[in-house]
């Protein structure tokens, strides 16, 4: 078992593909039955690849709906999933915003839909580059949310997601987000697993009766979604959704463990993945593609003699509160790196808000330094990440705060305005 996901890329069974293509392969490996999609940069090549698969008969029986908007993407996926099929779609930024109404709808219907998100910055001004504000702004929709930080992880996480989403005790939809262009459009070796192995890992496709809680079947007519008075079970239904999220943590851990047993790739406990944290004084919590490069930054800053480590946040929803608390007790200072914004909030970054909120009444937990960088795809270099780590070391040792602390958050990589 190797700790670093990058170590898996040297394998003779792999193929060199774009991150988006890895997402498409995952959908194929999962034998999805209905795909619905609408083009949007940088997600487009996911659906192009799936088109190629379907047109060439590589996904027999799969229905591919090419709709006229993202709102219809998710509406049609909801219709298809409700009728008892495994479904897949992908989008980005504006597309996700346009779907938002249906994003809530999918949760209310408790459908195990998996959606890949090649994340991009919200407009205006137009932006098509990596920024997780799109997926993180869906925070309260009740979708589980995972980040993939490598090409392989996109493929792997989509498979793991089906396993958790379709668990009869969970039945929630899930986003699998990865940085637009940085992962979506670059090529790396990816292991696409044997179908037999994937079949043995995933639950079987839904049987003729469909999901345990919902179906579209004239022999068992079901009315779904009619108006409910405030005195009805609305509030209780909402609690059930939250319950499912809380229960999903154990399921994610289980699914990740089983995945690693069958496929030999390790993603921490599934919720978080620590990297060289065991003897660290300071560390960073980071997610998405920046986490991959941060591993190198950690290695190199360690070579300079500083005990630094990182925690890759793999899930934003459900939020791994317990893991974050445990980690925070082992170090004295944690940077939380957001490539996303939460305007007007405590820190300005969505994940740092979550972390601070998780730790607010935990005695002996680390001090948090919120960091925002890389918005709208702005490059975050290895040197910059090393400097972030050194800054944390200096802050920890001397109490000397870095420059560019604005409203309590370290805004890294801002342009000089004259």
């Amino acid at each position: 078992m190797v700790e670093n996901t990058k170590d898996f890329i040297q394998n003779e069974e792999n193929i060199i593909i774009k991150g988006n293509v890895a997402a498409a392969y995952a959908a194929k490996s999962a034998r999805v039955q209905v795909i619905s999609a609408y083009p949007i940069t940088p997600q487009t090549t996911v659906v192009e690849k799936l088109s190629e698969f379907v047109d060439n008969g590589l996904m027999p029986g799969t229905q591919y709906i090419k709709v006229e908007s993202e709102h219809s993407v998710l509406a049609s996926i909801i219709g298809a999933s409700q009728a008892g099929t495994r479904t897949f779609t992908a989008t980005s930024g504006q597309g996700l915003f346009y779907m938002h109404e249906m994003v809530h709808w999918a949760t209310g219907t408790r459908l195990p839909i998996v959606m890949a998100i090649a994340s991009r910055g919200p407009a205006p001004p137009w932006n098509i580059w990596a920024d997780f504000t799109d997926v993180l702004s869906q925070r309260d929709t009740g979708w589980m949310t995972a980040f993939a930080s490598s090409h392989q992880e996109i493929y792997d996480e989509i498979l793991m997601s089906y396993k958790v989403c379709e668990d009869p005790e969970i039945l929630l939809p899930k986003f699998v987000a990865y940085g637009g262009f940085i992962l979506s459009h670059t090529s790396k070796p990816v292991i696409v697993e044997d179908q037999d192995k994937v079949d043995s890992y995933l639950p079987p496709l839904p049987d003729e009766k469909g999901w345990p809680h919902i179906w579209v079947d004239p022999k068992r007519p079901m009315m779904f979604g009619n108006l409910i008075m405030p005195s009805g079970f609305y509030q209780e239904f909402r609690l059930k959704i939250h319950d499912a999220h809380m229960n999903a943590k154990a399921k994610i851990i289980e699914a990740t463990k089983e995945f690693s047993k069958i496929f030999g790739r390790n993603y921490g406990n599934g919720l978080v993945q620590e990297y060289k944290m065991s003897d660290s004084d300071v560390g960073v919590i980071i997610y998405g593609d920046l986490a991959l490069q941060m591993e190198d930054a950690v290695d190199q800053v360690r070579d300079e003699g500083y005990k630094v480590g990182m925690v890759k946040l793999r899930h934003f929803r459900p939020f791994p509160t317990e893991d974050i608390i445990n980690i925070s007790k082992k170090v004295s200072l944690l940077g939380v790196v957001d490539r996303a914004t939460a305007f007007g909030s405590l820190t300005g970054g969505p994940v740092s808000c979550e972390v601070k909120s998780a730790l607010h009444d935990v005695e002996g937990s680390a001090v948090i330094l919120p960091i925002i960088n890389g918005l709208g795809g702005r490059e975050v270099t290895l040197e910059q990440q090393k400097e972030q780590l050194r800054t944390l070391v200096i802050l920890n040792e001397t109490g000397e705060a870095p420059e560019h602390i604005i409203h309590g958050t370290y805004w890294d990589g801002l342009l000089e305005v004259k």
Partner: protein
Amino acid sequence: MTKLKEALESCQEEFFLPGNSCCAGCGLEIALRWAMKALGPNTALVTPASCLNVVVGLWPKTAPNFPFTNMAFAAGAAAATGMSAAFKAKAYRFPGKGWDKMTAITFAGDGGTADIGIQGLSGAAERNSDQIYVCYDNEAYMNTGIQRSSSTPHGAWTSTTTKGKDRFKKNLPAIMAAHDIPYVATCSISEPLDLFDKFKKAKSIEGCKYIHILAPCAPGWGFGSDETIDVARLAVKSGSWILYEIENGIMTLSRASKPLLDPSKRVPLIDYLSKQKRFANISEKDLIELQEYLDHTWKRIEVDLSCQDNYPK
């Protein structure tokens, strides 16, 4: 046309059950009841936001005795597309189990069709999505309290056109016909057998079918709850609402409307309007314009029909 006796004998089963929450004299109820009688049991219905969400009954009571899904306002046609795709995927996995016999239908109001739903509907039609899309047209946003829709006729009072609507009714069946889908039909709840036959035909055709039903609304239009069918019939007889089918591009006027090509056979427009309070304060100018619009619509149909003679059949 199917005879009443035959129709009643062939479809004694009720799919939209009594005890629902429709207003007395609801046009929608008649439309759905007869549509389902024609379609039969292997039908799954999607309804975007509309009166239909409410009249089926508050949870946990429910009137439809068939698979029925409430859906977001703009999402009807797309959700039915997804269901239809799922039935095909299931027919592939479970052959011989009848999944290939399933019909997905969207049953939407005029707002959910002609306004907020038109993008999804147009997309579904262009893709020839295998479903029957039904618009039950009560000519305003009745569920939210009688606000104007693009399907509200010229001169009609609504709570957002207090001096009468300035624009004319959007001709949605014509827009749908322009998508070159295999079947477009208009119906009136006053002609249930015509409606019955059109739904039977739509079910037998593969691809996207569009059926637009005039379904008068007693509180919204301002007539007595015992007058729904009379009002709907006057809409047809005055030529305000024209019944036809467009099958693979060829238009045929239906029996109730065909004689009205001759203007002298039409009941005066005012007989139809005067039944409804929403036209109580219509200006003379609007009245003239409404009459001109009606005459013009018929002329256009006449021209269309004459051009059609040269179409390859």
